[in-house]
């Protein structure tokens, strides 16, 4: 007997493990009859997951946490037993802002501290001449993109709430908004950075992996009560996604994966652009400069699929740092409980592993992240808007 499941997704490359699980038959092999539903907004995904129209969803990791804490919306406990991707975002800037940052930089343009300090000088100069503040696009208030942009610029001395404007833009509108000057830069997932570069309207300034070595990006999210009622179905879904992730990470399968993802009812952009992202070989300037990083997007490699509660703690710490919520120990525990490595281990037949003692995040600035002492950790950063 097969179990019918409805799973919502946003057309982004990091939905790959779900799409491949369905389109290559890994889900069917686990006895699951999955209908993937393409959605247009994270709000829709969140609401349809919350009210049970979706059994599971491709979800921004911070939305899973915000939903479990009741931040910004209805409180619905969510669990994330599988990481669909680590990293995968990039910061793209307009040719004008790129030139301004490069002319102000003192050091290596690939070093995020160098570019962040250069950005601070650009911001200061614009203020002196009375120019409008720079505008940065990101995808959602509770998004990795929001926190990654903020982390980066604040390290260089730019206050994201005082010195620039941060605005939410749906990913498909990012490129147009950069081209017509409504934003000067954005942080978004694949394929939109590459699309901007190909159209000659943007330069990829940083891969997010320059800023954070490991950043939980999208999760496979289910309602907590659903996970308790359907443990076997969930385990089957985790295994299907895991097989798909392994398949995607094998180099010889990349062309086929890119073709599957490129289908109009899936992501609907050219296979070649998608493959660049999967391979981490990106064209970063309209002139054709290329950059390669194995860390650009991790789907299953280096234990990427196993949820790490320290990642959830880091995301919660960003919510606190930027005033989206106040620091509360019980809320931190709830946030960490969203990421469920035990469900992953059980589904995969693994023994529980003790977490690595090393810094799970690997941020380019500030002290190593300590999930057990967020308050002291945040105090190490000069810029922040935390509420007491």
């Amino acid at each position, binding site marked *: 007997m097969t179990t019918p499941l409805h799973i919502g997704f946003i057309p982004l490359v990091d939905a790959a493990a779900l799409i491949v699980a369905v389109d290559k038959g890994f889900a069917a092999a686990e006895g699951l009859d999955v209908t993937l539903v393409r959605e247009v907004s994270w709000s829709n995904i969140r609401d349809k997951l919350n*009210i049970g129209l979706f059994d599971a969803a491709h979800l921004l990791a911070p939305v899973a946490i915000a939903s479990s804490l009741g931040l910004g919306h209805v409180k619905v406990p969510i669990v994330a037993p599988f990481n669909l991707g680590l990293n995968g975002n990039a910061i793209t800037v307009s040719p004008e802002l790129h030139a301004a940052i490069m002319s102000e930089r003192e050091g290596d343009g690939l070093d995020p501290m160098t570019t962040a300090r250069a950005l601070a000088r650009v911001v200061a100069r614009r203020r002196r001449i009375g120019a409008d503040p720079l505008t940065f696009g990101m995808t959602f208030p509770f998004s990795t993109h929001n926190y990654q942009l903020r982390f980066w610029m604040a390290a260089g001395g730019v206050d994201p709430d005082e010195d620039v404007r941060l605005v939410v833009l749906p990913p498909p509108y990012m490129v147009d908004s950069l081209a017509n000057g*409504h934003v000067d830069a954005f942080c978004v997932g694949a394929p939109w950075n590459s699309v901007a570069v190909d159209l000659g309207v943007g330069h990829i300034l940083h891969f997010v992996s320059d800023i954070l070595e490991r950043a939980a990006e999208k999760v496979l999210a289910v309602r907590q009560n659903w996970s308790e009622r359907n443990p076997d179905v969930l385990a089957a879904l985790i295994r299907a996604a895991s097989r798909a992730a392994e398949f995607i990470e094998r180099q010889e399968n990349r062309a086929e994966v890119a073709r599957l993802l490129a289908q109009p009812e899936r992501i609907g952009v050219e296979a070649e652009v998608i493959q660049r992202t999967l391979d981490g070989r990106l064209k970063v300037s309209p002139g054709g400069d290329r950059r390669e990083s194995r860390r650009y997007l991790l789907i299953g490699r280096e234990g990427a699929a196993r949820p790490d509660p320290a990642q959830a703690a880091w995301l919660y710490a960003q919510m606190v740092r930027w*005033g989206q919520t106040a620091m509360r120990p019980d809320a931190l525990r709830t946030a960490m409980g969203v990421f469920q490595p035990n469900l992953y281990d059980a589904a995969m037949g693994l023994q529980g592993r003790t977490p690595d003692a090393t810094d799970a995040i690997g941020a380019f600035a500030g002290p190593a992240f300590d999930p057990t002492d967020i308050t002291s950790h945040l105090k190490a950063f000069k810029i922040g808007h935390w509420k007491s």
Partner: protein
Amino acid sequence: MNAESSPKIVIVDESPIRAAILQEGLREAGFTGVVHISEMQSLLARIYALDPDVILIDLENPSRDVLEQMFQVSRAVRRPIAMFVDQSDSASIQASVDAGVSAYIVDGLKKERIKPILDLCISRFNAFSKLQDELDRTKSALEERKVIDRAKGILMKVKGLTEDEAYVLMRSTAMREKKKIGEIAQSILTASELLK
């Protein structure tokens, strides 16, 4: 009607017909301050300028995520805005998601004043999709008529039949094969295309 009894409502919808249907319904129900935004560029700035009490947006609109930014503490916001559907009202959220519409209200507006707006919205959205379905059905019926007429013409020419005889032949074939007459007509067109 004074401002107290008629909250200012903004409809964010790229479909002008649906927005008009909704707007008309709200006006009939006595909600006079209704504004339609169809242009998604600088959406938040437009909304802030209008300063509405209620915002209605269709679920097919990617700009829903833009509205979520209103919940964030920001200097630009006059007062915090919260989504209408609260913890206790999952029936309303279900009904509105099914209908394809979402509502946001300014914090502080009483729930009983919002309920009739949302109910009206849901029924108008449902009416609109029914209308859309009917339109689609009419369109495909018209298409089918065209296909049948062309197939009839082919049969008349190839088999030397009258128009009535050609139609009767297609209908009896359809009945025998338990298919729709449109499908039989389509196969005739396909076959004649192949045999050209």
